[in-house]
Each structure stands twice: as structure tokens, then as C-alpha cells.
């Protein structure tokens, strides 16, 4: 068939090579393992958590970490470990949905603005500038003030807050790709705008967007924690790391474990997203990538020369 005769795009191989390159870096590998772990915990939270996250037992309050409760109990006698585990689900949910929201909105805006330019570019990007003008948390709090507190509204608020970031990143990438030879060639043979946009321009503008996604996930998790900390995000009794921090704050000198474990969980998840973002940037940036590949190749050659390996 003619398709087989068409120039082959070594997509699969590139992806695999990229993944191998990414996981070859220890920080990224660590990040990936952590994220897989957190996702598994979030998926199987009911099996992982030793008890219900909202099992109140005032008699058992403020128990230190020990055999019965690995992470201790909080001021209402709830198992902190179970709440941290269930909090992972909330954090990931909010992160993924909020970033998904800003990804879709932001990329569409950036794509149209960058591709069509002129007044559409001006209109869309000035609108984004307006959103950008507000500090991120302030904007999220303002949105929640309008919508009312709650997990869903926190997702929307965070989503809106990070939309302009994606719009800018996408637009910049699109501007670079728009005038490429292959785009012009495709246009010259009569390709429709949607085909140009989604078949040619977007795929080639993806790398910075992917990196931005990973970094934004870290921000989104932090933002959810911050909003819940001030009582605007996840509502009690649902466990959220930010809420748990806020609740544990008054008990720091009596029962450090209430605040420390959810705090650690936030640190680990945010760190993982950031490290993964760093790794992705190295792999997806052509210049960084060739440098990385060259370095790997050198170390690979050295390894091959070591005795025992050659046999």
C-alpha cells in the first residue's frame, strides 16, 4: 500500500528512545517511580488504607505513631495514614483535572492566537495577559469567592489560573512552527486549516507543552493544598493534605505527626512532578537531547569496554 511507501516516521522508536533516555537519569527515574507509586496508592486507596479516613474515635485522639497507627491519629482520633492515603487521591484528582482543563483551554487559545495572528492573536493574548496580571493564588481565591468553596470549584479555579501559562507556551511554539517549510508545503497542496493545526503544527509544538504540563501538575497540587489550607478547597471531613496541615497546625507541639506526614506527602509529590518536568525538558529539547545522547553514548562505550561485559 502507498502508506507503507510513504516516508516512515520513526515515532515509536523515538518515544522508546526518549523514555529510555529519560529514565536513565536518576532524578527522573526516582520521580517516575514515586509517581507510579502515588497513582497506585490513589487507585487502590481503599485496599491500602488501614482504616476509614473518617472513622472518628475521640477516645483514640492524638495517639503517637506506633504499631496500631503507623502515622498516629489526629485530634478526632482518625488514622493519619489512612487520611494521607485518601488525600493522595484528592491531590491527584485535582491536579490532573485542573491541569487538563488549563491544558485544553490554554493550548487551543495559544494555537489559534499563534496560527492566525492579527486581531485574534491580539484579542486572545491580551485576555490572557489580564489573567496573568493577577498573582496565581489571588486569582484562584477570587474565582472561588465567586463559585463557592469545594473540590470541584478548586479544580476550576486552578484550571483557570494556569490557562494563560499554557496559552503563552503554545503560542510561542506555534509561532516557530507556523512558517516551517513542511507547513507551507502542506498548505500549498491544499490542506485544510484544522488539518494544518492538529496534524502539523500542534505535534511539532508539543515538547514545551509537555514539560509545562508536568511542572503545572506540581503547581496544581500545591495550589489545591494551599486553597484547602485556607478552607476554600476540599471541604471537611474529606481528607486533603492541605486541610490536614491546617488542622494539624494547632497541634504541632502536642502532636507533630498530624501536620508532618501530609506535609511530607505534599513535598514528595510536588518534588516528583518537578523532577519529571526537568527530565522531560532535557529529553524533549533537541539541543539538550543531543548533548544527553552524546554523554550517554560516551559512558556506554566505556561500559562496553569493561571486561566481563564483552564476553
Amino acid at each position, binding site marked *: 500500500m502507498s502508506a507503507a511507501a510513504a516516508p516512515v516516521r520513526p515515532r515509536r522508536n523515538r518515544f522508546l528512545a526518549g523514555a529510555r533516555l529519560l529514565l536513565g537519569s536518576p532524578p527522573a527515574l526516582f520521580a517516575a517511580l514515586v509517581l507510579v507509586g502515588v497513582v497506585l496508592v490513589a487507585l487502590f486507596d481503599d485496599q491500602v488504607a488501614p482504616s476509614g479516613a*473518617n*472513622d*472518628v474515635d*475521640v477516645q483514640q*485522639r492524638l495517639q503517637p505513631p506506633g504499631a496500631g497507627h503507623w502515622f498516629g491519629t489526629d*485530634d*478526632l482520633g482518625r488514622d493519619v495514614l489512612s487520611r494521607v492515603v485518601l488525600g493522595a487521591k484528592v491531590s491527584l484528582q485535582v491536579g490532573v483535572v485542573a491541569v487538563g482543563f488549563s491544558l485544553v483551554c490554554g493550548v487551543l487559545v495559544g494555537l489559534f492566537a499563534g496560527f492566525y495572528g492579527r486581531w485574534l492573536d491580539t484579542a486572545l493574548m491580551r485576555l490572557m495577559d489580564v489573567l496573568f496580571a493577577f498573582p496565581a493564588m489571588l486569582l484562584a481565591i477570587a474565582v472561588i469567592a465567586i463559585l463557592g*468553596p469545594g473540590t470541584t470549584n478548586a479544580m476550576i479555579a486552578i484550571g483557570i489560573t494556569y490557562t494563560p501559562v499554557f496559552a503563552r507556551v503554545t503560542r510561542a511554539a506555534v509561532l516557530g512552527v507556523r512558517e516551517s517549510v513542511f507547513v507551507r508545503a502542506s498548505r500549498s497542496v491544499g490542506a485544510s486549516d484544522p488539518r494544518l493545526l492538529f496534524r502539523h503544527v500542534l505535534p511539532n509544538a508539543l515538547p514545551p507543552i509537555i514539560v509545562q504540563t508536568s511542572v503545572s501538575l506540581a503547581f496544581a497540587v500545591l495550589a489545591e493544598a494551599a486553597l484547602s489550607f485556607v*478552607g476554600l478547597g476540599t*471541604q*471537611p*471531613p474529606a481528607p486533603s493534605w492541605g486541610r490536614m496541615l491546617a488542622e494539624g*497546625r*494547632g*497541634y*504541632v*507541639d*502536642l502532636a507533630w505527626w498530624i501536620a508532618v506526614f501530609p506535609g511530607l506527602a505534599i513535598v514528595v509529590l510536588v518534588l516528583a512532578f518537578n523532577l519529571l518536568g526537568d527530565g522531560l525538558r532535557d529529553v524533549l529539547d533537541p539541543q539538550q537531547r543531543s548533548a544527553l545522547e552524546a554523554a550517554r553514548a560516551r559512558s556506554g562505550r566505556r561500559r562496553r569496554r569493561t571486561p566481563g561485559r564483552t564476553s
Partner: protein
Amino acid sequence: MRRRTVLTSLAASSIAVAGCSTGEGVDTGGAGETGGGGGGDAAAFVAAISAQPDQLDPHKTTAYASFQVLENVYDTLVVPSADDLSMQPSLATGWTTSDDQLTWTFTLREGVVFHDGSPFTAEDVVFSYRRIIDQQLANSARFASVADVVAQDPTRVVLTLSAPTPNLLSNIGGFKGMAILPRSVDEASLTTKAVGTGPFRLESSGAGEIALTRFEDHWGQAPSIDGVTFQFITEPAAALTALTGDQVQWTDNVPAQQVASLAGDDAVELGQVASVDYWYLAMNCAKAPFDSRDVRRAVAFALDREAITEAARFDTARVNQTAIPEGSEWHHDYAPFTTDVDQAKSLLAGAGVGGPLTMGLMVTSEYPETVTAAQVIASQLEPLGITVDIQTEDFATWLDRQGRGDFDAFMLGWLGNIDPADFYNEQHRTDGPNNYQKYSNPVTDDLLDRAGVEGDRATRKSLYDQAAQQIVDDVSYLYLYNPDAIQAWKPGITGYETRADKAVDFETVTLPS
């Protein structure tokens, strides 16, 4: 009646500013404490309160934070005693009542001057009371039975009543919301300025702190301390750190969980007294299914008040199924509800509520104990098939929703009540101004009306007891507990007393020499 109201945005903005000005407090406070550097007697007394007053007009504000300040600036005709909250002379030295109980004549103290130097006369009392009545200000309901206020001569004021009002004294003296202002006062300036007859005059009021200075011409003894600076520290842990760090000398922002450990701490003096406050859960009697008495009773039977109280207040509150605390002479020992889930279930079934039920429970982060208690309540109602949807609102929204009746249930407290009328009238009379839960029972109304005009104390108590019983049985309010008033100050400070009505009076305070 005081409900603590605080504008959340104000409180939030005060955190940052208070943070800046604490530094100044350290310097002056430190110098005074250590007595070094020739500080002499210029010792500062800094009090940390948890919120910033919304305004300083005593007739308009309902915020507890405002009254903490105003208590020291203004006077009332009579004042509750520290021991048993019975009404004692203050600006009035005595009073007589006509035989029909409808005419009260107050004799005023002579030689009293306001902070601006003008003399205090009967005309000022008439002006102040007329201001509250005619402008229908926050406490005008306390004058509901007052038909006329007349200055008979410069030292005598006559109140004419439309019906006997045995609690008139606590109505006009229960707190500084009934303060006496000079008739020459610029009313518009009262939001930020104050002209009273109290032991301290208002020096300055700002976003960061409020400063009072000693009023030398006070009719009583002038205070021994030069002044009081009120700082606003929202976070209890921060307030406590400021106290142990010598940045403040007094605070009422003490976390309940710390009380046990503070009691044995030599660095802090702890004042703990059973207060007249009460905290309760109210269900919307105008909204199905909570309009059903049986559904409300089912909830009352399902709750374990001990656990709720322990969770919300550690050991600093006592469970009570009525409003008036045990120490009061108006207390009525009545506790019909025991935790009985089976009984609750059969009541629900009897009310025809078969399926699962959702109850939106409105709480506010302004009072974190409501959020804590709500989570315990949620877990206790779960076996009953009631899903509690906890709605944490900022206080302004909370009050707005309460006012509109837009709730299934809410939890909050009332504070500073003295007379049984304060505890029950406005909250449970049909269409009472604070009857947000829309409770209505002619039997209760009749009992409250009769008790309101009953002159004989024993009969009056018995009527209020019956009313309380009816209110508890109907679950107009689901009473939970009476908390302690908890305050802490530096050791060596004398002349201060923690009061059951949580009035904060620094008049007789002396600092360690």
C-alpha cells in the same frame, strides 16, 4: 445579646499589620518587664485579642472584639458584678421602682466627666437611650418595653415602661452595647473614636492595634497602669508564643488543647471560669424533613454530646442539654436525651423518612470548633443513614445564609447572656429577631411572654424552666455545651479577674513592680 461578628477580610489584613507592630511591643514591653534601662513606671500593658473590632460605635457593633476594647472605655448605668453577674450600681448609684413596676427612677452619680471634659448628666442618658431606640440600632430590642425616657432633673432619669420588665437592669447594663455617650458627641466619628466615662480613653485606633490611655479624671479610682494596647493575633499558637515571649501581657486567644499543659506552667497565669456562653446545633424548622419534630428528635438522640464536646473543647467545656450553665441561678437540670441510635431510627421511621437523608451543616472557619464538631456530628449521624454535608463558609456568607434561612442546619454559639430572657426570648419566640431556625410553638410563646413580665423571681424561674423544657423537647436548638472562659496573662500581674460573661476589664490591673 452579643454574637461575635468579625469581618473576615479585616481580620486577615490585621495579621500582617499586627506582625509589624509586635516589634514595638517587644521593646516597650521588655523594658517594662525587666525594669532595666530606666523604663521606670512607664510599663506597657499589651493585650492580644483574636480579632480586630469591626467598629467602635458601642450602639452599633455586635462584635465581641469591639466590646473587649469598649468595656474599658465606656460605662453603663448598672454593671454586672464579677462574682454572680447580679446588677450593681455604676453611673447610676441607685434606683426605685413604682408599685405597678412600670416606672423606674435612676439616681445618677455626680461629679462624673466624659473624656472630652463635659459633665455627665441625665440628658446624656436620655440622648444615648433615644439614639438606640429611635435609630433602631443593634440593641433596640432591649428597650422593647420602654415607652419613654425622661430627664427629671440633672441627676435623675425616669424610664416609663409599657409592661413590667423584671430584667430591665440586665437589659440596660448587661454589656457596653448600652453605653452612655455625651449628647454633644459627633455621631459619625464614633466608628473610630470614642468619648466615654470609662477608666481609659481611646488614644488611637488603627489597623494594627488600638491604644488606650489612663483617664485621670475617672469617677472611680484612676487605673494604675498607664494604658492598654490591644493587638490582634488571630492564630492561638502565635498569641501564646507572644505571651511567653513577653511581647504581650495578656491574651484570651488560648488554644483549648493547651490548657492542660499551661495549668502547670509557671511562665503563664491561667484564668479559667465556666462562662455563660453556649454552643448549639439548629435545624431548619421551615424546611423538610427537619420541619418534623420527630426528625429533629432523632438527631438529638443520635448524638453523643460528650464526644462532640471533648473533640471541640478538650476538657474546657461541660455538656448541657439546655442553654443556661450549671453555675447560674437560672440553671434548670433537664437532660432528656441519651445517645440511643435505635430510638433515633424508630423516630425517623415514624416520621416517614425512609430513604437516606442529606443534611447540609453550615459551619464557619471563623470559629474552628464548629468545623471540628461538625465532623464528629457527621460521623455520629452516619449510622442513622443521614449524610452530613459540611459547608464551611466565611462568616459574612454564613450570616447572610442564616439570615435568608438558606440552610438545613447550622452550628454556632451565643455569648455573654445573663438573664434567662437573653437565653430564650429572641431565639425561640415565633418570629423572634434571632429565631433563624423558624421555630414556632404557641405553648413556648405563651410561657416566654408570661415569664417576661413576671415579677416574682421563683414563679419567673419556673416559667422559664417550662419554656426551656419545651424548647429542648421540640429541639428548636439542640444544645451541646457551655465552654469555659479561658484567658492567660503574665505571672505577677494582679487585679485582673476572668469573668463568666467574658467582659475584659483592665481598670484595676497592676503590673509587677
